[in-house]
């Protein structure tokens, strides 16, 4: 493999936690994800409390298209698989492999974001805006906040791919790959609850 050219061949078996800084990054990131969970929890609770307050606007049952949501779900779920394959490539110390799988992750994530933007534009034309009713406000706060996380993740992982080609896989860059992959899985786990609570429960009524 040509992977050895990038780091001189002296990388430990688990480069992401080989240094104290790397270990602390992973621990700190789990604490961050804990905070994120609480944050999304409050947005979910708000949405569940307000989801039927539509005034004279359209309800979720009338607005949502399950086909688009299913497509978005498949895109995000698959991109989550690709980001774990990037970590697998990191275990093999294969820099090109990491970059390849992260790039596909970004591609599928961008597809997800594109679908979400298309969906939001469609809803606004239907009169479902953030100011229309409490359902609208809590819907865009929750789903939009998740979409913002996806957008941030795309930017982050793209920059990581660029940094990997400049610095290669080291004990400094490895924790970043690992943590970015954790972030992306977290985004996917949150989406599992969004498609369940917002869209599927919305369709049930």
């Amino acid at each position, binding site marked *: 493999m040509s992977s050895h050219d990038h780091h001189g061949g002296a*990388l*430990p*078996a688990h480069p992401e*936690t080989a240094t104290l800084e790397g270990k602390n990054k992973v*621990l700190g990131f*789990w*604490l961050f994800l*804990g905070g994120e*969970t609480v944050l999304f*929890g409050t947005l979910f*609770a708000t949405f569940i409390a307000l989801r039927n307050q539509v005034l004279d606007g359209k309800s979720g049952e009338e607005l949502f298209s*399950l086909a688009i949501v*299913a497509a978005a*779900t*498949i895109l995000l*779920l*698959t991109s*989550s*698989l690709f980001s*774990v*394959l990037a970590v*697998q490539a990191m*275990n*093999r110390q294969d820099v090109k492999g990491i970059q390849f799988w992260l790039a596909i992750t970004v591609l599928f994530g961008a597809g997800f974001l594109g679908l979400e933007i298309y969906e939001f534009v469609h809803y606004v034309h239907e009169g479902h805006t953030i100011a229309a009713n409490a359902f609208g406000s809590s819907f865009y706060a929750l789903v939009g906040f998740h979409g913002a996380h996806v957008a941030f993740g795309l930017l982050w992982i793209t920059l990581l791919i660029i940094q990997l080609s400049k610095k290669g896989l080291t004990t400094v860059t490895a924790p970043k790959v690992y943590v970015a992959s*954790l972030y992306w*899985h*977290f985004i*996917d*786990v949150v989406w*599992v*609850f969004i*498609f*369940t*609570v917002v869209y*599927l*429960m919305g*369709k*049930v*009524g």
Partner: protein
Amino acid sequence: MANHEQVQSSERIKRGPAHEGPRNHFIAFGISMALTLLAFVAVATPEFGNTFKVGFIIILALIQAFVQLAFWMHMKDRGHIFPIVGLATGFFVFLTALFMAVKLLWW
């Protein structure tokens, strides 16, 4: 020697057999896809009652979150006691809050 051990395990990773490989991750992907499909199909089936549908898809979502945490977020791998304790504590607090909101405030 710890250093010696490390070199050995890194040799093993290069050879492959002791290394986990992507198989489990594909299995997790298959399970996630199946659970997702099941949830969509359940909601689209008019024969099921609404209460059943809601309960069913929430359980499916919890299972899927558990599978993804275990496989993709490495909770089943060694050396993850600390995050597992954190997650379990958080889940306990979540259930307590949910119980309080649903059982004590609404009814």
